[in-house]
């Protein structure tokens, strides 16, 4: 998950800003942010991908805007300013999709509101963009969006495969012919509790593999 296509402006530091949120600073599994949307949109792969992409774009651009304005934003109203920027971005994206990519916009309809309230966005603006230059902030937004996206896709992949027997709408289980052997889709996988359990397993797996994440007693 590193970005291979490197140009000079991608210094080691910038690369690190991008890669840490994918692994040991992952917004979902480590910072435990954005859980609600991770549970809500992961029944199928397609909405999960659309959501991941939208969050990545909105986080990156809002991070950029806030970082560019950071010296002019009065400290006392900074949260309001951040919210205004996020909300504006989301509405603009939504309006453009409605006009030029109507099908995608139908997919996204219910998630638009979720993007505005996504804790990752506020978290990044507050923790990173307010103290860094626009370019690193932009990369930080991309990284966190991607880190969020990876987890969404993993959870959605497992839930769609085991719950509906399909991958991205393609009926894998049916093609494999496992239904004739008595296999049945697990209805539990479709319901939100299993998303939480799958997510828990991912967190468990990641923590057991990465010593720096194991909390000291």
């Amino acid at each position, binding site marked *: 998950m590193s970005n291979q296509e490197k140009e000079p402006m991608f210094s080691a530091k910038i690369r690190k800003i991008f890669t840490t949120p994918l692994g040991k600073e992952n917004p979902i599994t480590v910072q435990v942010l954005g859980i609600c949307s991770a549970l*809500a*949109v992961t*029944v*199928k792969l*397609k*909405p999960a991908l659309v959501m991941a992409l939208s969050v990545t774009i909105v986080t990156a651009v809002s991070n950029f805007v806030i970082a560019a304005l950071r*010296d*002019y*934003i*009065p*400290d*006392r*109203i900074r949260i*309001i*300013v951040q919210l*205004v920027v996020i909300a*504006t971005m989301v*509405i*603009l994206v939504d*309006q*453009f999709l*409605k*006009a*030029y990519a*109507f099908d995608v916009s139908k997919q996204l*309809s*219910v998630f638009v509101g979720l993007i505005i309230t996504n804790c990752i966005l506020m978290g990044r603006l507050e923790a990173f963009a307010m103290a860094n230059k626009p370019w690193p902030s932009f990369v930080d937004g991309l990284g966190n969006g991607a880190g969020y996206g990876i987890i969404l896709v993993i959870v959605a992949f497992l*839930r*769609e495969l085991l*719950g*509906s027997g399909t991958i991205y709408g393609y009926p894998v289980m049916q093609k494999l012919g496992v239904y004739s052997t008595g296999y049945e889709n697990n*209805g539990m996988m*479709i*319901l939100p509790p299993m998303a939480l359990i799958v997510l828990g397993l991912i967190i468990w797996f990641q923590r057991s593999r990465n010593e720096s994440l194991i909390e000291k007693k």
Partner: protein
Amino acid sequence: MKHFSNRYIFIFSSVMVIAVATLLAMAATMLQPKQLKNLEIEKKKSILESIGVEATAATTENLYDKYITESLVLNSRGENIEGFDAFDIVLKEEEKKPLEEQHLPLFRATAENGEKVTIIPVEGKGLWGPIWGYISVKPDMSTVYGATFDHKGETPGLGAEINTRPFEDMFIGKKLFEDTKFVSVGVVKGGAKDGDPHNVDAISGGTITSKGLEKMLSDCLGKYNDYFVKNRN
């Protein structure tokens, strides 16, 4: 962190709000014609889907003109009302009026196999928001020729399954009437029995959406009862 005066804060927030409002207003105004056009195409596409014609955004207009032969507006006694365009009627607005004053839109089409079918728009409530659809019936005014549903924001994988082909296709061949009595098509939890002409399977995990869909069908189609009775052959 620099200290900012109250004056600066007020000016900053005013400028920000005005700038953002202008930007959004401009975007909304400029994109609106395109968005409305998309909605119109979407509606035509759904109407076509209910008679089994798959259209893309580009082919919708032509196919709509080809298949949809007539549109009517009825009152609740099944009589024709002149002077209204069925396509422009907003069901949600009509539902607020008393039944006697409601305008009921209806479309007639010649299906792929040459059969004259009647298309009726339906609208109701799902779990999170509105759900709607189009049901087409054969000339006997009871047998369902096809159905298509859509929703504003039902849960993907659960309630949102109502707009998938497998769900919609279950309605084909179902009967709205039991002899001469209007019974609509029910959505049954646990699965409808084989050969049951009035029920289809509900969606696992989408009970409230399924129930809403069932209510939508019996409410909306029920209003056309008089028209069905008069025009069946």
